[in-house]
């Protein structure tokens, strides 16, 4: 008996926590407190709702006001004020306990995998064989079975640790972040549901189960993005998204990709007759190569939707409408990683069964998205907006890593490191937003122009944020360096010079916009260390910033420690160990290990250049920020970038004219053709009835006449037929 056979306990623990929370919620919520939506009915049009735009309108044409909804007098805002009842806190504790159990089990699984015991016949080791857990058969159809199976292998174990670990930290963080929110208990229920969906997704042994988890993740992200569905919409021209349309956008946009994913699954199934990953790896080798290529590109469409790659990336920045811990959990560490995980899971099919075109598509879309999102991130003023686009950009890196690598190690390692430092960045930005609650911005200021010098107020957050910033910029010895640099280097080694150029330039942009964010938020001209550590006089807003409670800084410290430790362990060969672990315990070398060579120098140099430029512009203030936008070309570029290449507007137009036009056509068809047939048949029957009811006179003599007349006609017919008369 080995522990891995009980891997199903991990989702079961979360499911148990979820069930308990829902029970408590149903009993307590519907028996007592009024729903929060009742309080916000009159929140949107309060008198001071109209003031804020006027006050700031003079600043700039594209001024961002932050979320200035006027809920401060009500008890439906996050963070401050309001009280959290005991039962809601109980929900959060149950959630944390369930996650703690799941995380402990995941770590135990990791340890067991590292020990690598013999499990199978013929001395097969656990790392090589993985472990198959049959749960039950969903249904049998003819000689086909549709099984619900789990499979635990090294890839799954890594994802389990990442998902449960980040989710646990986000749970702890949320107890501080959403304290006082009327949806406190609901928040933890939705978090647990999300974690459960993600666990099902990563434990799946076949495409059927992964698709179930996939859609569950979509559903729970829909719920979490729209968690503040009752908030007032942000003012016109603001960068901030509005939760209700944002959640629908996330759901519908990812569904576009899911359509391709489903067709891809069906092609694979019809060609091979199996959903199972292991069986697919060999079965697809004997099928027409071009067909598999098409199927894998279609499957990648699903990953494009879920992992927010161009052109389906537009939902992710809008998904920042959700509470910040949600952004950390869903949109940095786990949900968007689902697409990367899917491609990594199907890596053998991509690499062997499909033609090279499949990975070319993956690589070029990834590289383009990385560059594309990075350029948009340059112009954001919304602190979470920058992070959202940087997430899209980093996901692009992961796909590049999968496409150019010899195994799925490159992409998965970047996913692994990125999960920690991106969660750290999001949670750090959550601390900032949490600290900047004013009367006007009851949900916290998100506009970086109203920040600055915060490092003096919240040093722990600033230090953690700086560590994550260095990691994402690819500066050694932090974790991002060990995962990002090999991706760029491998692209060069594989002679994909276009991808190399794009990713290298993106590395420069990434470092620049991340440090732009840091200087605008925590530092500023005149601060210590050349503006890195801003002074009190640098703060441009009117809130009273303060360090967050321990429940919020503790996860930050843990994540920062993970980022540093993973980075330091890189010197001792952690990435080699990762490659060994992920590749069935075979000794393979990490494709390109960062070393003291020219490639690494370029990679790190791009990051250092980006940091230096950001320092010059925002830290030291030597180069004014308007230097690039003052000339007409720069202004045009800035306008295009600030408007996200007008893609959102383009999609809005497409939806407005093409999609809604088609919908109207369909509605007309439904109204006149479908309803016409139904109503027409009813009308025909009715008019026929009104005709024939005239014959029902009720007079016996009429009936008699009809009877005898009919008998006569029948007789005549018989006579004619038998030839008795008429011949």
């Amino acid at each position: 008996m080995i522990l891995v056979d009980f891997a199903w306990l991990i989702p079961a623990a979360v499911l148990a926590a979820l069930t308990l929370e829902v029970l408590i919620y149903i009993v307590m919520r519907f028996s007592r407190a009024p729903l929060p939506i009742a309080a916000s009915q009159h929140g949107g049009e309060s008198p001071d709702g109209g003031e804020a735009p006027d006050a700031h309108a003079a600043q700039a044409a594209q001024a961002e006001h932050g979320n200035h909804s006027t809920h401060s007098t009500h008890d439906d805002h996050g963070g401050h004020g309001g009280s959290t009842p005991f039962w809601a806190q109980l929900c959060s504790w149950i959630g944390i306990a369930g996650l703690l159990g799941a995380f402990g089990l995941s770590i135990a699984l990791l340890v067991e995998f590292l020990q690598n015991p013999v499990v199978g016949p013929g001395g097969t080791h656990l790392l090589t064989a993985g472990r198959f857990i049959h749960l039950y058969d969903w249904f049998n159809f003819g000689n086909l079975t549709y099984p619900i199976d789990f499979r635990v292998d090294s890839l799954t174990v890594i994802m389990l640790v990442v998902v449960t670990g980040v989710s646990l930290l986000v749970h702890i963080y949320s107890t501080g972040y959403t304290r006082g929110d009327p949806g406190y208990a609901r928040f933890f229920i939705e978090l647990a549901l999300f974690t459960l969906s993600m666990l099902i997704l990563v434990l799946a042994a076949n495409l059927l189960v992964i698709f179930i988890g996939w859609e569950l993740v979509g559903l729970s992200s829909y719920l979490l993005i729209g968690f503040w569905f009752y908030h007032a919409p942000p003012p016109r021209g603001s960068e901030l998204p509005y939760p209700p349309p944002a959640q629908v956008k996330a759901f519908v946009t990812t569904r576009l990709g899911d359509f391709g994913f489903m067709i891809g699954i069906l092609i694979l199934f019809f060609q091979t007759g199996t959903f199972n990953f292991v069986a697919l790896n060999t079965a697809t080798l004997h099928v027409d190569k071009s067909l598999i290529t098409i199927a894998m590109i279609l499957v990648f469409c699903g990953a494009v939707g879920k992992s927010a790659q161009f052109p389906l990336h537009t939902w992710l920045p809008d998904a920042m409408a959700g509470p910040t811990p949600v952004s950390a959990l869903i949109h940095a560490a786990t949900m968007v990683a689902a697409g990367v995980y899917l491609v990594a899971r199907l890596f053998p099919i991509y690499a062997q069964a499909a033609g090279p075109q499949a990975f070319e598509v993956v690589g070029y879309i990834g590289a383009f998205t990385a560059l594309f999102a990075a350029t948009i991130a340059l112009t954001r003023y919304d602190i979470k907006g920058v992070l959202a686009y940087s997430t899209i950009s980093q996901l692009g890196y992961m796909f590049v890593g999968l496409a150019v690598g010899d195994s799925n190690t490159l992409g998965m390692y970047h996913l692994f490191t990125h999960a920690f430092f991106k969660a750290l960045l999001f949670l750090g930005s959550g601390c900032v937003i949490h600290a900047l609650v004013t009367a006007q911005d009851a949900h916290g200021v998100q506009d970086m122009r109203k920040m600055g010098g915060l490092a003096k107020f919240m040093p722990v957050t600033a230090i953690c944020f700086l560590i994550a910033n260095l990691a994402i910029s690819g500066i050694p010895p932090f974790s991002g360096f060990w995962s990002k640099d090999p991706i760029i280097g491998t692209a060069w080694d594989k002679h994909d010079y276009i991808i190399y150029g794009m990713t290298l330039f993106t590395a420069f942009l990434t470092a620049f916009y991340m440090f732009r964010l840091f200087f605008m938020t925590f530092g500023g001209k005149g601060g210590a260390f050349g503006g890195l550590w801003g002074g009190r006089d640098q703060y441009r807003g009117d809130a009273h910033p303060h360090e967050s409670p321990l429940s919020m800084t503790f996860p930050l410290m843990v994540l920062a420690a993970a980022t540093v430790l993973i980075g330091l362990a890189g010197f001792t060969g952690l990435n080699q160990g990762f490659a060994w672990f992920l590749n069935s315990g075979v000794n393979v070398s990490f494709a390109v290990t960062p070393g003291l060579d020219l490639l690494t120098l370029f990679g790190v140099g791009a990051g250092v250049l980006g940091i230096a430029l950001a320092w010059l512009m925002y830290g030291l203030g030597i180069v004014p920020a308007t230097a690039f936008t003052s000339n007409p070309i720069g202004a045009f570029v800035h306008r295009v970038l600030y408007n996200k290449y007008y893609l959102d507007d383009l999609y809005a137009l497409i939806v407005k004219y093409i999609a809604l036009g088609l919908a109207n056509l369909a509605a007309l068809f439904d109204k006149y053709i479908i309803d016409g047939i139904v109503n027409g048949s009813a009308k025909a029957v009715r008019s026929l009835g009104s005709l024939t009811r005239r014959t029902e006179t009720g007079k016996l003599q009429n009936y008699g006449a009809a009877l005898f007349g009919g008998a006569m006609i029948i007789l005549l017919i018989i006579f004619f037929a038998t030839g008795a008369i008429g011949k």
Partner: protein
Amino acid sequence: MGVSLQAFLVLGAVVFCIGLFGALSKRNAVSILMGIEIMLNAVNITLVAFASSFLHQQPKNNPLTGQIFAVFIITVAAAEASVALAMIIAIYRRRNTIDVGEINLMRW
């Protein structure tokens, strides 16, 4: 045997049609009753005609079947006429009419 079977059958058919016409077209209940009686008697004519014309051809059968049928029909018709007339008188007493067009109490 100067008169052929055909002549009797034609007579029966004609009388039946006269009776049918009377029963279907008259509005007076007594006239309808009379039409029905005529139809019954037309059937009697055909029955008796068939019975006498097939008398020799089927010696084994009871030669009087047709006639006995006719006698039965006359008896039943008499009973029916008495019942119908009683009903008509009862209706007339209550509603002061025997026009079938106005006796429509049970019409839908």
